[in-house]
């Protein structure tokens, strides 16, 4: 299991690739290679987020991340308090 910050950095990297691809696909919806990259990173992101949710608490609110007991949403640092 990666350390929390290292895992967070990995998620930030993969999500950045996905933001970039999403904007690109909005104006190039028929670029098959870009779409393959998008789906590949999307799979990676899913696995990384599952890992994070289970180890450190929900990354997303409203049920998009499950929480271990007890309620872990409040445990991890708030983004502005994170020390990178």
């Amino acid at each position: 299991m990666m350390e929390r910050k290292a895992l967070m950095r990995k998620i930030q990297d993969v999500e950045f690739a996905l933001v970039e691809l999403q904007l690109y696909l909005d104006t190039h919806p028929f670029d098959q290679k870009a779409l393959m990259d998008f789906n590949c990173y999307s799979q990676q992101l899913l696995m990384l987020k599952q890992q994070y949710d289970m180890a450190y608490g929900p990354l997303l609110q409203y049920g998009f991340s499950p929480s271990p007991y007890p309620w872990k949403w409040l445990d991890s640092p708030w983004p502005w308090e994170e020390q990178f």
Partner: protein
Amino acid sequence: MWIYEKKLQYPVRVTCGPNPKLAQYLLTQYGGPDGELSAALRYLNQRYTIPTNEAKGLLTDIGTEELAHVEIITTMIYQLTKDATVEDYEAVDMGSFYAIRDKALFYSDSNGVPWTATYIQAHSDPITDLHEDMAAEQKARAVYEHLLNLTDDPGVKDALRFLREREVVHFQRFGEALRIVQEYIDAKKIY
């Protein structure tokens, strides 16, 4: 709807704090005319009258990314001010900031001028709106370059460079959306 993700889009680490003066400079990208709040609200608000799906997608996705940039700016401001003393504020002639709200944030530019909806526009005409958006990205890029000239803090510079790059990418994508909208309008005329 929107889902909050408990993370920054890009890691922020201010190298040398406290530095309330630098925080004051950055404030304009929070609540100033070319700031990230203006950007998010401008794009999300234009979605309802833009005709093409590509542009609706882009306004939604870039508008959402701008909200993540708001949080990058506020994180830098937070880190630059959290350990600042009253004396630190006085030393850089920022006693007036401290007097009004201590370290609380407010949607204003660096001079304290409050955010106003007149910073953003929408005209229903998609050519007009997309040009407004492209101009907005260039204005924000220019402000980031001014901010880069105002600081030597490596951590702040790193985050500012990331944000400046995003303006360039958004400008590019809006330009592509404009081309698609122009083709759409031309195609309607032939039909």
